[in-house]
């Protein structure tokens, strides 16, 4: 794939400009609506220059303990990410290394945990968490999200582990290292891009999830997504506040994209080529 000629470059840039406009328009909408006064929210033609108001953000934080909800989201997302990436890596490593005819069945079973419609298990989870007193705690969400995140991590990480040459592990074992130490000091560090990719996906999923967060939390562990949605009431949708909240919720994702783009891109193919 060689360097395009000027004419091709112009074509590429034009197409990309169109694509960017289309793909970024909703994002722009979130940002602009979050600082637009309510009465002109839907004004047409849309005002590109308007008196910027911070009232939606102020409302967001004064009408709800939004800061606390963000913290909850963070705790839940980080907790589930850490647990899932840890567990998922272990499982993926085993599936990558064990040579056994049933290992694919195990892998499929793990993956199928992600295929079950979440709606069907909301009530059982509610009951069990209520029974053990975990309802409305971040731990409940961490557990539930992990059941979806672990399979994803296993799927992604397996590809990465497949790429780590076994010779390195063998070298370590000849040098005097046991199984766990070899995994911890050699294999895992080398699959670091995979960890990053898995972590990003787990985080994003946990951070964004709505259904379980709605059902399994109250004021204590409510997450930011639910809080934002709560501006959708029986008689009105508070667009300004929703957009302000959406923008805040968007930030970690964007930070991740900006910082991990390279790893994400690399990780995804490595993981999925297999």
């Amino acid at each position, binding site marked *: 794939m060689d360097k395009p000629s000027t004419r091709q470059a112009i074509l590429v840039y034009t197409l990309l400009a169109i694509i960017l406009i289309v793909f970024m328009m909703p994002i722009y909408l979130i940002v602009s609506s979050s600082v637009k006064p*309510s009465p002109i929210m839907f004004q047409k033609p849309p005002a590109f220059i308007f008196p910027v108001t911070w009232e939606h953000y102020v409302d967001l934080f004064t*009408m709800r303990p939004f800061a606390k909800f963000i913290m909850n989201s963070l705790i839940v997302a980080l907790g589930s990410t850490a647990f899932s990436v840890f567990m998922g890596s272990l499982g993926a490593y085993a599936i990558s290394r064990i040579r056994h005819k049933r290992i694919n069945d195990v892998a499929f079973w793990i993956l199928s945990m992600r295929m079950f419609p979440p709606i069907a298990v909301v009530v059982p989870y509610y*009951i069990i968490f209520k029974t053990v007193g975990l309802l409305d705690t971040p731990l409940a969400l961490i557990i539930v999200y992990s059941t979806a995140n672990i399979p994803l991590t296993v799927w992604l990480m397996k590809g990465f582990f497949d790429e780590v040459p076994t010779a390195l592990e063998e070298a370590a074992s000849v040098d005097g290292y046991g199984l766990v130490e070899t995994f911890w000091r050699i294999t895992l560090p080398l699959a670091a891009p995979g960890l990053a990719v898995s972590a990003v996906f787990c985080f994003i999923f946990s951070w964004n999830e709505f259904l379980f967060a*709605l059902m399994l939390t*109250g004021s204590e562990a409510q997450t930011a997504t*639910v*809080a934002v949605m709560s501006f*959708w*009431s029986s*008689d009105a949708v508070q667009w300004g506040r929703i957009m302000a909240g959406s923008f805040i919720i968007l930030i970690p994702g964007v930070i991740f994209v900006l910082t991990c783009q390279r790893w994400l891109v690399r990780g995804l193919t490595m993981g999925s080529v297999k």
Partner: protein
Amino acid sequence: ANAEKQFEGVELKMLGIGDTSVTRLAPIVGEFEELTGAKVQIDMFPYPGLIDKIIIEASSDKPSYQLLWVDSPWVGMLGEAGALEDLTDLAKRDAEEIGLKDIVPIQLQENTWQGRLLAFPASGMIWSTNYRKDLYENADEMANFKAKYGYDLAAPSTWAQYRDQAEFFTRKAGDTLAGETLEKDFYGNAQAFSRVAGAITHDYFPIMRAFGGDYWDPGTGLCAMTGEAHVKAAEFMKSLVPSNPPDYLGLMWDLRTGYMERGETALSSYWSVRTVRLTNPAEAMVAEKGLVVGYAPSPTADGAPQPTYTGALSFGINSKASDKEKEAAWAFIKWGTSEAMMRRFAEEGSGVSQFRKSILSDPDLQAKYPYYGVLLSAQENAKRRIFHPFYQDVEENFGIELNKYMAGETETALEALTTACNAVNSRLKIFPEEMRLRWIDDVPADVLKD
């Protein structure tokens, strides 16, 4: 002061919504704690999914929430499930304090199940008609209307008039309206035809009731909405389609009220919880533009006064809460719905939808909120809404079937109504008739008896 803090140490949590009935209260619960020592925490959730949470909460033995926000039609379901504490005795005991007599009676009836008061109104609703008074008083329009329909243009008192006027005011961009050329289409009316959360049924049921229909067969307790009146009502509703905005199939409550709030429709009937917005320039452009909105009771079939259609957004107490918590919760409800509090909300600004006679009839407030008069008078003769344990089945099935009918996917109204009724009946039939009959019996509220 110490003696007053009788609920010191009690913690109450309310499973609530992010709605005016709650949001005005949430920031000032500290005042209640000041008074009583009870800590109150209101969790606000989106309306979609809230009932799911309440049911799940109600189905578990150890409550997480002592206070439940209740949309009045849920009362039957929650009541039959035993989820809500009977407030009758408490209300009777504190009748004086809460000004029981001051509350529009239908609002109390609205919150009863089998005569028991299960929730206390925090926002009282009525279905009423809003119209562009400035258009109705425009000389040209009046003359044209008279010429075309043979009677004077005024807020519709019958559905037939409603349709005439809707049809009359439906204009295309470029047409003239009240002497001005329209830049965009103008709609005669804006009705919600969306199936989401049964919105279409909220528009259909008042019409159906006005046409003389009823939900249930009084003999069997089964769904009876396949009669002539029901079909006519559905057909009538469909006849409004041409004067509705083109997106009628997806018009949810807020979208529909939006047309009125922006002054883009001549007529729109809806719940009074949003009527208040028409008086607030910050929320509704119609007020900002200086257009005048008129308020009228919902039309009837024959123009004679007829029972209208009510609703309430209320607070209930989880029946599984401890006695102490229940007492505290009751104290909170009293505090949060007291006349003083409601007046405070009304004076503060847009306020919640009021349900106290003293407030609705207050001349100062009536001046501020011109629709108070209609709200008050309409409720005097009102009849409560559907309150059945299978309320959600009705709303959902009819929502979908009517929506399909309006979309043209179902040929006839009868077919749509029959499908919906059958779906409801298939679930009801397994119950003994005696039980079904009890469910449809609107026993007068105990608290209203002396």
